[in-house]
């Protein structure tokens, strides 16, 4: 035990003497929380949409009035009137416009004749988010135009009434569990990955290896030190992130306890995973090169910034075994839904088993010699 504590003491002293590293592991997730939270949180406003009216009839006029109504109210788009369809499409293609609505000749007549009247929406589908927003808005608009002026006696459609369990969650709040998880991952990547390999390359481990410390003590000491650094980062980011994004649930004592357990288990799982990945690595460039890959491979499929339910099956497969997914889910439950510990025990169990398995594999792989 004394040997393990000596390793932990050494790592902690180094950690506190290098505030730049400590800050680096915290600033990145906080910046992400603030920037992404604000950048992705809003709705589309003032998109430029061309209207090419080749009909000029009364039904076309109704559509133009509906567009002007959108401009005056929810401002999803601003209509720009074009005479020439070709010019409008060309301007969508070169980025001057976000979309174009073409009202073809004879549109009004087809409406009166009930002869499949159509209007066309030309969208720049290289930007899925923008094209989806325009499609959705235009679908609503055409549905409204299609409403009969006289209501039928019997309502033929089933109405869906939506009940929201929680108050509206802004995107920044939605992002907080992911940012908190990411902060611990960055801490582990720096404190447990890069510094570990740097120490190896500098010969610090050579110093350990000539002492009577056992292989198990050395592995446990290095992992405990890495996990403690991640726990400290997690606690700090949890408090600062909650304050920035206005999540007040952290002040509930039960939630606080749950968060602490989740932070400890996440830190352990991440650190043992990193240790396993680094256990046979000698080159200090490798963890730096792996940082981007691991970040993409583990963070993005976790549901931290986009729901897992929207993923294709193979990506869901990654999410199933990704410890990030369970950490994000646990933090989401505790921070956003104020659930009891019973709701997150599955996440806690997965993280505990993941830590035990990765450590169990890493120990025999760890070399007690150079």
């Amino acid at each position, binding site marked *: 035990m004394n040997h393990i504590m000596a390793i932990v003491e050494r790592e902690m002293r180094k950690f506190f003497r290098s505030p730049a590293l400590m800050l680096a592991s915290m600033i990145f997730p906080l910046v992400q929380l603030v920037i992404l939270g604000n950048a992705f949180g809003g709705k589309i406003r003032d998109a430029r949409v061309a209207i090419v009216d080749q009909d000029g009839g009364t039904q076309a006029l109704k559509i133009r009035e509906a567009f002007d109504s959108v401009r005056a109210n929810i401002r999803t788009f601003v209509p720009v009137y074009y005479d020439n369809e070709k010019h409008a499409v060309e301007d969508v293609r070169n980025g001057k416009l976000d979309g174009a609505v073409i009202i073809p000749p004879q549109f009004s007549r087809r409406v009166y004749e009930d002869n499949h009247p159509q209007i066309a929406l030309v969208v720049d589908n290289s930007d899925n988010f923008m094209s989806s927003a325009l499609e959705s808005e235009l679908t609503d608009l055409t549905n409204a135009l299609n409403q009969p002026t006289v209501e039928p006696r019997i309502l033929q459609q089933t109405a869906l009434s939506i009940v929201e369990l929680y108050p509206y969650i802004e995107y920044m709040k939605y992002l907080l569990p992911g940012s908190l998880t990411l902060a611990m991952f960055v801490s582990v990547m720096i404190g447990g990955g890069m510094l570990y390999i740097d120490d190896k390359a500098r*010969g610090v481990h050579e*110093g350990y290896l000539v*002492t009577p410390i056992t292989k198990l003590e050395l592995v446990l000491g290095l992992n405990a030190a890495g996990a403690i650094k991640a726990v400290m980062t997690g606690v700090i980011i949890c408090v600062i992130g909650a304050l920035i994004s206005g999540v007040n649930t952290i002040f509930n004592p039960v939630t606080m306890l749950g968060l602490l357990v989740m932070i400890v288990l996440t830190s352990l799982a991440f650190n043992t995973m990193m240790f396993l990945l680094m256990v046979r690595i000698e080159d200090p460039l490798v963890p730096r090169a792996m940082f981007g890959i691991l970040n993409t491979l583990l963070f993005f499929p976790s549901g931290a910034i986009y729901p897992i339910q929207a993923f294709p099956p193979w990506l869901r497969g990654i999410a199933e075994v990704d410890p990030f997914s369970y950490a994000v889910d646990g933090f989401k439950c505790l921070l956003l839904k104020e659930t009891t510990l019973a709701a997150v025990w599955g996440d806690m169990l997965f993280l505990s088993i993941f830590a035990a398995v990765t450590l169990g594999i890493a120990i025999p792989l760890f070399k007690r010699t150079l």
Partner: protein
Amino acid sequence: MIADVNAKANDGTYLSTTRAIEVEHIVKKYGDFTAVDDVSFYVNDGEIFGLLGPNGAGKSTLIRMMTTLIPITAGRALIGGHDVAKDPDAARRMIGVIPQALTSDLDLTVEENLNIYAKLYDVPAKERKRSIDELLGLVDLTKWRDAQTKTLSGGMRRRLEIARGLVHHPKIFFLDEPTTGLDPVSRVAVWEMLGNIKNQRQLTILITTHYMDEADRLCDRIAIVDHGKLVALDAPMALKKSVPGSNVIEAQFENFPGDWEQRLRTLADVTSVQHEGAGMYRVLTGNGSRTTTELVEMAVAAGVAVKSLSVQNTTLDDVFVHYTGRQLRDELQKAYAFVMPQRPGLQP
């Protein structure tokens, strides 16, 4: 060929014959490459034993096998009677090791560095402070105990590493090229310190070096290692005596004839002549003054200009030449040239 005498010190006295280290037919292979090839030697209690050789000779590999850092392919090494392969922890408790690189934590203070290692070696809490106080005095770092290691000079950091290796009172002390990279003043300071420490703590010291003066000054016995093999082992004086000729004349000539080397061999008492290029000749002789006189007379008679001339006693470099056919300093220059070949004209 191994010329061996039993634990004879520089002053000619015989030391205790209890063996601190025994290495028997030790081999280290990396795939097809043999880094250490069937090396055997022993180090007596209280001895300072040197492994001398160029970079890549296998010195560090040898020391790493003895200190349990790398597995032994064949043969065995006993440290304080403990087989390093069978009972590595017992061997580790006997030894202090100073690796070639400076590995103390730069962010930690001098005292913190020592304290961490004292804990790793299970030095009891009560003893730790007293031991660290004593060691800091021994390596002259008492007033730097609270300084962060990154503020120390290279020489001071090396002294800290020496203290770190002694924090648990080892019986046997391994130092892998302890003065590499240090300035001449720091090197001398480290030598003096090692001498004092050895006497005060009754240590056995095994040191690797490629500095001939270091080996000559510090070591009771020296093993010359080349290409993974042990080519000579004896006390420094005995090694020098084993080389034919007691003086070395280094002379540079201009306008010399093609058979100049043969003519130099005909001079009185000359045992060997080596042309080192650029008109520089290295002549081993049993009588430096007589050969020098004859050499100058022969040069004048042949119209050969003598650009420079020096006479010195036989050195360990001559011993290395004698046993390997190459000069140690040339080997080192090759090694350095390999490291920094980019800038033309830059000499190590």
